[in-house]
C-alpha cells in the first residue's frame, strides 16, 4: 500500500499525461462520425508513430541533462536514405532497413562523441550536426521522390490482416486463430514493441541507470565510479536510433523521401514539447520515454480534435503552446520548496 503511494507520487507527471491523453482521445472519438472504429485507430496510429519515435529519441539526451536539436534532422536524413534503399528483392529491402537504422544510430554516435570528446554543450553540438545532417539529406534528395516497395508500404501502415494478406501467411489473414489480433494497427504494435524491447531493457541496464545518474548529479555519478562518457555516447546513439526508426517509418508512410527542412525543425520542437508534457524534467534525471510517447499522443490528439471540429488550423500552435506552458509550469513548483535561494542559481 505504502509502495503503491510512493510509486504513484513518483510517477504523477506520467499518470497525468496518460489521463489527459485518454480524455482528449475519448472526446475525439465521441465526436468523430466513425469514432471508436478500427479505421480511425489505424489512421491515428499512422499519424502518431513518427512523432512518438522522435520524442523517444529526444528523451534520452534530456534525461542526461542535454538537449538534442538534431533529432528531426536525423529523422529526415534517414528518410532520404531509406527512400533510395527500400526496394528490390526482400533481401535488398531488409538490407536497406538495416542500413537506415544504422545510419540513425551512427548520427547519434557522432553527436555523443562530439559532446564527450569535444566537450561541447549538447545543444550547440547538435545544432551544428543537425544542419550537417540536413545538408546530407538535401544532397541525397535534392527534390522529393523515391522508390519504395509498394507492398511493404501498404502492409506497414495498415492492420495485421493486411500484412498477412500481402505476404501470405495465416491463410492470408483468414486463419481462425489470427482473427482476435488481425485488427491491430501495425504502427501501434511497432510502438509497443520498440518501447518494450528497446526502451525498457535500456532503462534497466547499467548504462541506462548511469544516464539517469548523470542527469541527476554528474559529480556524484563520477564519485560513484560510474562510466559517464560511455553513458553519454550511449544516450545520443540510442536517440539517433529512435530517430532513425521514425525516419524509416516516415518513408514507408509517405512512400518517398523528402529533405524537408521546416518539417525537420517542427519535429524537433514537437519532440521537446512531447518530452516535457510526458513528465521528463529538462534538468535531467527524472522521467521516462514512455511518458514522451504519451506526450506525442497528446500533441497529435489536439490536432485530431482541431480537424473534427473544423477549427481554424491556424489556432493550433496557440493551443499546443498553452498545453506545453501548463505542463512546464507544473514542473516549476519545486522552486517554491527551495529554502536557500542561492541554490536556484547553481
Amino acid at each position, binding site marked *: 500500500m*505504502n*509502495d503503491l503511494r*510512493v*510509486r504513484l507520487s*513518483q510517477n504523477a507527471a506520467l499518470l497525468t499525461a496518460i489521463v489527459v491523453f485518454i480524455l482528449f482521445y475519448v472526446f475525439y472519438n465521441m465526436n468523430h462520425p466513425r469514432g471508436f472504429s478500427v479505421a480511425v485507430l489505424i489512421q491515428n496510429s499512422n499519424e502518431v508513430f513518427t512523432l512518438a519515435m522522435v520524442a523517444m529519441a529526444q528523451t534520452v539526451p534530456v534525461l542526461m541533462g542535454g538537449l538534442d536539436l538534431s533529432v528531426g534532422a536525423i529523422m529526415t536524413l534517414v528518410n532520404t536514405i531509406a527512400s533510395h534503399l527500400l526496394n528490390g528483392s526482400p533481401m535488398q529491402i531488409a538490407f536497406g532497413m538495416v542500413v537506415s537504422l544504422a545510419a540513425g544510430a551512427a548520427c547519434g554516435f557522432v553527436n555523443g562523441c562530439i559532446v564527450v570528446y569535444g566537450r561541447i554543450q549538447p545543444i550547440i553540438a547538435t545544432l551544428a550536426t543537425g544542419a550537417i545532417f540536413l545538408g546530407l539529406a538535401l544532397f541525397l534528395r535534392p527534390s522529393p521522390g523515391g522508390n519504395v516497395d509498394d507492398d511493404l508500404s501498404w502492409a506497414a501502415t495498415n492492420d495485421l490482416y493486411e500484412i498477412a494478406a500481402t505476404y501470405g501467411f495465416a491463410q492470408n489473414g483468414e486463419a481462425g486463430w489470427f482473427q482476435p489480433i488481425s485488427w491491430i494497427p501495425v504502427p501501434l504494435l511497432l510502438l509497443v514493441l520498440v518501447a518494450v524491447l528497446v526502451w525498457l*531493457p535500456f532503462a*534497466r*541496464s*547499467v548504462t541506462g*541507470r548511469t544516464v*539517469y*545518474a548523470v*542527469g*541527476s*548529479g554528474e559529480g*556524484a*555519478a563520477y*564519485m*560513484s*565510479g*560510474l562510466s559517464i562518457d560511455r553513458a553519454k555516447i550511449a544516450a545520443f546513439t540510442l536517440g539517433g536510433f529512435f530517430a532513425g526508426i521514425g525516419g524509416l517509418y516516415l518513408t514507408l508512410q509517405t512512400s518517398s523521401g523528402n529533405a524537408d527542412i521546416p518539417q525537420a525543425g517542427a519535429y524537433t520542437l514537437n519532440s521537446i514539447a512531447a518530452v516535457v508534457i510526458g513528465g521528463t*524534467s529538462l534538468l535531467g*534525471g*527524472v522521467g521516462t520515454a514512455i511518458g514522451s510517447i504519451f506526450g506525442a499522443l497528446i500533441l497529435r490528439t489536439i490536432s485530431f480534435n482541431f480537424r473534427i471540429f473544423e477549427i481554424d488550423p491556424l489556432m493550433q500552435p496557440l493551443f499546443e503552446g498553452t498545453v506545453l506552458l501548463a505542463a512546464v509550469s507544473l514542473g516549476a513548483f519545486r522552486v517554491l520548496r*527551495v*529554502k*536557500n*535561494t*542561492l541554490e536556484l542559481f547553481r
Partner: protein
Amino acid sequence: MSAPPKDPAQAHVQLTGVTKRYGGVTALDNVDFSCELGSVHAVLGENGAGKSTLIKIMSGVVQPDEGEIRLDGRLASFSHPAAANAQGIVCIFQELSLLPDLSVADNISISDPPRRFGLIDAKAQRRRAEELLARIGCEDLNPMSRVRDLPLSRRQMVEIAKALAKNPNVLILDEATSALTAADVDTVFEILRRLRDDGISILTISHRMHEIEAIADKCSVFRNGKHIETFQQGARSEGEIVQMMIGREITAHFPPKPPPPDSAEPMLELKKYSWEDRLKSIDLTVGAGEIVGLGGLDGQGQKELLLGLFGVLKGTSGQVIVQGNEVDINSPQDAKKAGVDLALIPEDRKTEGLMLPMSIADNLTIASLKRLSRGIFVDADAMTAAIEDGIQRMQIKVGSSADAVSTLSGGNQQKVVIAKWLMTEPKIVLLNDPTRGIDVGTKQEIYRLLRSLAETGASIVYYSTDYEELIGCCDRVAVMYDGEIVRELQGDEINERNIIASALKMDEAAQ
C-alpha cells in the same frame, strides 16, 4: 614527527612522506600515517590542518605530490575514487554523493547493481537495500522513495548503507555524523564497533569530542598539514589535545585594536534568529564601529547566518533590528536598501562575487547602478569617478578598468569584490571568509581596511576559518557550534586556546 605504529606488520594502510600542495599552499607536509585493521582511528585538527586532504588522498580523490601509499605492505596508487573502492577503501564524504532523483535502493547499489541477464535486477536490488537498511536500523525507510524527498539525516544514513554495500575493509567517515540525530549516532556507532570487531579499519574525522571518546581506539592530531602525534584514546587529556592543535606561528600583522568603547550604540541586533535546523535561536548584537568575528569549526551555521541576514534564505524566524528598526529582508535587493544598508562579501568570489567575463569597471559598479544613475540612464561621469575612486581606495592593481576581471590575480579580484560593495556605502558589512586563497600582502590590506571602516562607524561581521585573523582583527568573537553561539569572547579572552576549546565545546577542560 609522527609516532610509528608499534607493529608495522599490522598497518593496513600506510602513508609515508606524503606531501600535497594546492598552488602555494602546502596542505599536507611530509606526513607519515598508518591505520590498522580492527581499530577505530580518529583524526583531530583545526580548520586547514590537513585532515580533509589526508582522506582525499587515501580515497583516491586527489593524488599526492610526493610520498607513497602502501596497502597491506604493497605499493598502491588510486587514480580515482572507484580505484580505491576496488581495493576496499570506502569513504563517506561530508558533501553527500547521493543522486537525488534516484531511489534509495538505486543509490545503495549504484556502483555495482545486482544483475540478471545483464539487466539490473530490481527485486534483488531492493532486497539488498532492505537488508542494509535493516542493518543500520532504518527499517522504516522505503527503498523505493527518492533520495530528494528525504530529510538530511536520513540521506546520511542512506550514504552509510551505500558505503556498507561496497564491503569495505577500510571505512573513512568525514564528519559523517554531523547531520545525524542522537539516536542515529548511537546506531551508527554500534555498527562501527561491530565492523571493527569484524576486523575492518575505521578512520573518522569528527569535531565532537564526546563522540571521539565514545568510539575511538586511537587518535591522531594534525596541525598545519603536519602529523603531530598519534596516541591511544584516553592517553591525553582534552587540555593536552588542545595544546597540540594550537601553537601556530603568527605570520600576519594586524592593525592595533582600539580600546573597547564604553557604550557603542547597537547597529545590528538579532533576537532568536533561526532557520531550518541550521541556525538555532541566535542572539547577537553588533555595535557601531565594532568588528565581531564568527568563530568555530567550518559548517556550524556561520555561513547560513550571513546568508540569512543578506536575504538569501527563505523561512528565517526571529527579529532582525537594524539601527533600532525591525527589518524584514527577503532578498539581497532588500538588504541593499537605504535604512538597512547591508553588504555581503561572499564566500566564493568566482561564482557569487564577480561576473568573470565582464570588465573590472562593470564589476565595480554593478551593485551601485542606482546610485550612479540619473533617471533611467547611467551617469557616465559619476561612473568614471566612482570607478577611479574604487580602484584608488582598494589600491587594485589594474592595467585598464576595461579589462575582464578574470585577468586579475586572486587577491586583486577579491579587492574588486570588496570595492564593489564599499561603493554602496554600507553601514553593516558581512564578510564570509574573505581572505581564503589570497596572498599575505592583500590579506593585510584587507585587515587595515576593515579597521578603518569600523573607525568610520560601520559595523562588521566577519566569518573566518582562520583563528589567527579572528584574534588579530576582531573586537569580539562569537563562537558557533551546531547552529548556536556557544560563547562570546572579548578582549584578552580572544585567544587560540579559548576559540578552539569553545569550537570543540569543551570549555571546562580548557579553563
